């Protein structure tokens, strides 16, 4: 909208973030932006009375130095990866995209983007976890794109590249970079690493258009995913969240059948499958703001503080979709969230 300032018209730089290479990259990339020095990123990001969605229309960039904790245990809302050594970290808070169902709009008061510039501290924390795993016989997996879409930012901040270079060769550890981006070409020159899982979230075209309209369309994501597979990367596909629209079975079955005509299932590391679900507090916070998405005005159950499609409906949906996937993938490659 031309009445709004362009994205990143303003950069707020924490005093402690000055001098870091990522800060310099950001300031040179957006040299026409208004730069304001701040004491702490929370002075901007955690202000009361912000409107997440309006700020998303004219996002500002906040550069900050992350303080401890640098790493967190994985949420119970992610699929079981067959290892207890699963963590996530937050190199960036918030996302360039703005999917209707995204929990970030309930998690954060601000729609602005925070980039933490001290990656080395976050990497040291991972080194520490990798050296002291809960179960030493299992791998340690860290999702580094959990509260953001790291690859979507790669043309602005080469973070995925840095993280891949960092983790490469680290024995029994892997990072997962989850994305809806089409920017695989930004890291295409890097040698594929066994320590990296590139995960694309895919949805049927109608779902992409209606609920993920700010992310690249399905065909662009599939193209990026195929390029990654062809280049020899480990690729995960996330069918998550499944949105149970009225004709969900026809929509998803057609989508999956078509997708696996294009993508060789045997080359995929694994897939995840889960229906829409969200922490109840986040959900209620979003709904109170009158979001322009019917997702927040449908009927759900509440189970252990999670808003979720009711038990019978979701198990039926997951089972039916799993059956379709079994035509293309072995059962051990299908990670489901049924709760």
């Amino acid at each position, binding site marked *: *909208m*031309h*009445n*709004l*300032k*362009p994205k990143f*018209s*303003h950069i*707020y730089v924490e005093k402690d973030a000055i001098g870091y290479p990522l800060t310099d990259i950001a300031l040179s990339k957006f040299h026409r932006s*208004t730069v*304001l020095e*701040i004491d702490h990123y929370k*002075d*901007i990001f955690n*202000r*009361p*009375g*912000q*409107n997440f*969605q*309006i*700020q998303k*229309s*004219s996002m*500002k960039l906040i550069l900050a130095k992350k303080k401890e904790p640098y790493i967190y245990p994985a949420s119970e809302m992610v699929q079981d990866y067959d290892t207890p050594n699963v963590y996530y970290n937050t190199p960036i808070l918030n996302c360039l995209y703005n999917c209707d169902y995204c929990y970030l709009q309930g998690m954060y008061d601000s729609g602005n983007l925070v980039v933490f510039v001290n990656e080395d501290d976050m990497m040291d924390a991972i080194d520490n976890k990798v050296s002291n795993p809960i179960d030493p016989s299992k791998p340690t997996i860290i999702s580094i794109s959990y509260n953001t879409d790291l690859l979507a930012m790669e043309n602005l901040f080469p973070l995925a590249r840095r993280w891949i270079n960092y983790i490469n060769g680290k024995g029994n550890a892997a990072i997962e970079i989850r994305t809806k981006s089409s920017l695989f070409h930004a890291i295409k020159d890097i040698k594929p690493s066994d320590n990296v899982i590139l995960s694309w979230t895919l949805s049927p075209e109608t779902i992409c258009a209606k609920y993920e309209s700010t992310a690249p369309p399905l065909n662009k994501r599939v193209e990026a995913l195929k390029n990654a597979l062809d280049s020899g990367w480990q690729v995960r596909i996330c069918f998550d969240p499944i949105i149970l629209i009225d004709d969900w079975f026809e929509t998803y079955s057609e989508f999956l059948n078509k997708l696996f005509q294009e993508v060789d299932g045997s080359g995929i590391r694994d897939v995840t499958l889960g229906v829409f679900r969200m922490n109840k507090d986040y959900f209620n916070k979003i*709904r109170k703001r*009158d979001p*322009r*998405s*019917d997702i927040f*005005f*449908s009927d759900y159950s509440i189970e252990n503080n999670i808003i979720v499609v009711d038990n019978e409906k979701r198990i039926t949906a997951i089972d039916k979709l799993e059956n379709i996937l079994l035509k293309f993938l072995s059962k051990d490659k299908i990670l489901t969230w049924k709760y």
Partner: protein
Amino acid sequence: MTDQMQCIITALKAESDPFIHHLELRRDPTFNFPCFRNDDLGIALVGVGVGKKNIRSRINDFFRSVDSNSIQFINVGIAGGRKNSARLGELFLINKIIDELKSKPYYPDVLTNSPIKENSLTTVKKQIVDGGEQYDTLVDMEASEIFDVCSTFISVHNIAFLKIVSDHMDIGDNNFDHESIRSLIIKRMDQIMDFIEKFKLIGQLSGPILSDIDMDWIELNREKYLLTETQVNQLLNSAKRFRLKNSSALFPQLDIKGPTSKTDRKKIFQDIRAQLKA
């Protein structure tokens, strides 16, 4: 209820007069302080006087009197600026407000795509007359309090600050004459009004899903079918879902008799929701 109201906040009469004239504002006699409005334009002006002392009570009184689901506050006024960094008469949009008595600054959202140059501002308690070398920002006497008060009522994206440099912090009270301040505002009137028009569009981005007519429909059904609070909340969600899918369609006209029992009420309620889903 009006759709949207914008309220200009000024400190001095000389700042208010040009807006009263330009926007054809009429004094609202219900207030015992300067409050002017033009309801056709959806715009008002509140005079708060110099300094912080009247700001909270006047904005509070005004806000409580407004029958609007969306209000924006725009503080327009003069400010001091350092000789080497601000020209007299220059107009600035404020992106940071420091209160010299508080540790945390205030950051208004800067979302409106306006060509007005930006600056930071320090709100001080007493007028600065020594050249203000210690301030690398503009200086005024109200903005931090206005932000503090207004942000308790509305979202921060609906508050804006425009300041015109009136002096280089080297003159006393006696040299601020009504006419020169009035003239500073008049010279910048077009730019200010252009900003206010664009700013209005930001306020329009955050309206409620359901209109007043939609809410009347909910209320009608609540009364007619003796709905419980939980049922009303569920009906609101169904109604919002319907409205998001059908932006201009009318809600179904229900020709069902009032309930005769709780079971009957439950059935009626389910019927209403089913009709909204259809």
